[in-house]
């Protein structure tokens, strides 16, 4: 196996649910040694969220947990106990990176916040992900993904203009925060490699979401215009819309060349100067009305293929379950079957990107406490008896 990009980086992952685990999953894919710390018995809440094979809840078979924690080592540790916190400090002392997503203040109460940990290990990089950040008036507010999508501006911009704002499906705000955290951790590692200095990173889910609104916030500052949700249309481009083809929905938009688009949809009326101009979005209903008959008369596959011949970026609306059968994913071996001792052989979406020298790699998720022996015994040098005793005391 080739050396991986992040070989030699040790990450302690105290995070739960989605945002932190997606961050550390990226680090694990690139070869970092990620040690996931879970509370004894209960484990990460995502072990309880499913989906489960046959809908039978089992903490070792939760699809969400298995996806987000692929390639990590799993240990159990009770941070509520003094012994647990002592061991945690030993772990943090050996770590390059620590990722956590508890509500702000939780680790400080336990005496394991950045200030105390970095005194022992000044090179430590700690990323704290929370819904509203580590300080400021909303610091102690609690939230879930939908609240972050609402307070980050994404929800206002999504959905039908005549109906309620719509949340993006699945916890996308949490993923977006985890992604920003992963980039921030890598920037901090870059700085540490140059200077030896660790640091604390404060990632607010609200701010991560507000960062990806394209130009909507800037447009407001430029002109006072408040952009609003536009259903399946694009805010500024026309045509750009989900339409019903003969067999299923497609996403229709024009490419760089308007004559090519008019030729594709066999509608010369689109070439009137009024509609051939970039200002055609003023007549969006009319433009879409001229396109719809051609779209409705063709099957999606044909639309995709014909459009691509003209370099027009039309697309098919696929259901998630259809993805593994798609020829492009197949050709690139994107979906990977991975065996797991409890959940069996399942198909997972592969790493999110390819690297020519250090290809990211997916391995299976850990069982609860699977690596206690390796981490406490080998890494921290505890004796077998100590490990047994800690287990009996419920510390691990």
């Amino acid at each position, binding site marked *: 196996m080739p*050396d991986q990009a*992040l070989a*030699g980086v040790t990450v302690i992952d105290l995070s739960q649910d989605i945002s932190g685990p997606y961050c550390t999953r*990226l680090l694990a894919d*690139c070869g970092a040694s990620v040690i996931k710390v879970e509370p004894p018995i209960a484990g990460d809440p995502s072990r309880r969220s*499913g*989906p*489960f094979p046959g809908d039978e809840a089992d903490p070792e078979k939760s699809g969400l947990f298995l996806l987000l924690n692929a390639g990590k080592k799993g240990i159990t540790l009770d941070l509520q106990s003094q012994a647990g916190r002592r061991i945690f400090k030993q772990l943090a002392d050996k770590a390059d990176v620590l990722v956590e997503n508890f509500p702000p203040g939780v680790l400080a109460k336990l005496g394991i916040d950045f200030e105390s940990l970095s005194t022992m290990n000044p090179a430590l990089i700690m990323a704290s992900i929370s819904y509203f950040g580590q300080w400021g008036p909303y610091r102690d507010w609690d*939230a*879930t993904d939908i*609240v972050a999508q609402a307070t980050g*501006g994404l929800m*206002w911009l*999504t959905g039908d203009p005549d109906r*309620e*704002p719509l949340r*993006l*499906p699945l916890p*996308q705000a949490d*993923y*977006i925060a985890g*992604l920003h955290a*992963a*980039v921030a951790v*890598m920037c901090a590692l870059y700085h540490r490699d140059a*200077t030896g200095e660790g640091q*604390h990173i*404060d990632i607010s889910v*609200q701010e991560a979401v507000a*960062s*990806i*609104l394209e*130009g909507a*916030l*800037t*447009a*407001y*500052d*430029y002109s006072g215009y*408040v*952009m*609003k949700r536009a259903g399946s249309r*694009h805010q*500024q481009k026309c045509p750009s819309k989900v339409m019903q083809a003969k067999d299923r*929905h497609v*996403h229709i938009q*024009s*490419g760089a060349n308007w004559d090519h688009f008019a030729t594709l949809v066999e509608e010369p009326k689109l070439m009137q100067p009024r509609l051939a101009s970039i200002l055609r*979005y003023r007549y969006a209903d009319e433009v879409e009305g001229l396109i719809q008959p051609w779209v409705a008369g063709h099957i999606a596959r044909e639309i995709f293929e014909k459009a691509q011949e003209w370099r027009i*970026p*039309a*697309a*098919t*609306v696929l*259901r998630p379950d259809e993805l*593994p059968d798609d020829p492009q994913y197949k050709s690139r071996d*994107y979906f990977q079957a991975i065996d797991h001792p409890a959940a069996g052989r399942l198909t997972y979406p592969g790493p*999110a*990107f*390819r690297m020519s020298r250090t290809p990211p790699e997916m391995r299976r998720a850990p069982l609860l406490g699977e690596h206690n022996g390796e981490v406490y015994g080998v890494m921290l040098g505890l004796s077998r008896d100590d490990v047994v005793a800690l287990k009996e005391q419920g510390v691990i």
Partner: protein
Amino acid sequence: MSSDSRPALDGLRVIDLSQIYAGPYATKLLADMGAEVIRIECAARSGRGGSLPRMQPGGAFGASFPDSDTGERSYNRYAYYNEVNRNKLAITLDLSKPRGVDVFKRLVSISDVLVENFTPRVMPNFGLDYPVLKSINPRIVMASISGFGQDGPYRDCVAYGEGIEAMAGLSYLTAYADSQPLKPGVAYADAVSGLHAAFAILAALRYRERTGEGQHIDLAMREALTPLVGEAIADCAMNRRIARPMGNRDRAMAPHGCYRTKGDDRWIAIAVASDEEWRALCRAMGDPTWSRKAKFATMADRLKNREELDHRLEEWTIEFDHIELMHMLQDAGVKAGAVLDTAELSADPHLNQRSFFEELAHPEAGTHRYPGVSWKMSQTPGRLRLPAPCFGEHNRYVFGELLGMSDEEIDQLEREGVTAEEPLPQPDV
């Protein structure tokens, strides 16, 4: 907190050939952290929209220019471009001309990273595929962002973010329970791809520091987005169940949704994750009779009866201002957030106290506030140092100071059309 004397990515030089949003979002993250990002734009395909006639075009597009006025040089005044390209430099270079390719190769030889998001046939057509660039600079990290990847049957397919969202299963789920597929209100696939690309670049740089070797990153936008719908794919893999759009509802939480409040088009998102939180919400509502009914007592009951539950809750929320209600519910221990529009977000006291927005003076767009650095760092906070570059603004600096060309040589490039003063008109922005 230390001063910003040494930014996190100090000394890193990035050549940015990318356009629209995915690549530029990746390089924004690097630029905010102190990398020197040099955008390369050409007159025919500037990636920032063409030169529009001066006008006040109205609508969301027109409003993307300061005072809704395109100005003399619209391409220097576009909000979309100016937000994501702050902290970067820009030069013009035509890579379809041999002299342009020569200059580009010289830039590669003094840079660390190259980011491009053309379709995969473009760079080889310029004679600038990875093996060529590697022979010039073995340490270069090249990131190629495309819709579907550098190989496979869809390799040459064109795609924008909306198409990728459709083909990755996201648009299908972005819908009300009874509606057709809609789309995310922002270029979501682009942002997700840019984030993954920035991560991959920094991982490759760390490998380079250890080994001296650069590499090529192949990021397919669809493959970067797909893990984010992984939960729905897993359910199908495990149970052959086809995911259905759920609107604002949740599998495990009720109430969970977006509820109308006082005022026109004002809303609040509320999520109740446990019975304890439900009791907190009931107390905040003053324990109305309906809320005490057995059919709402446990999470299982509420999930079963959520139609009525949502209706009852909305009868209550409609009496309140959405922002006041957010404060009231949060104080009562309920997870709630007003659906903030861009004006409210700009005024949000929390974001402002955290200095999320930063002001920049742009020579052609004026002084405005922009969403700032996406996270806070204790030692290397980063900041908005430079406004987005005007077209070709840094030709003299890059060609003269970095590449050591004489003024005469730079003028020659312009006479030959290798560099340009302004972009050509372009139909699509």
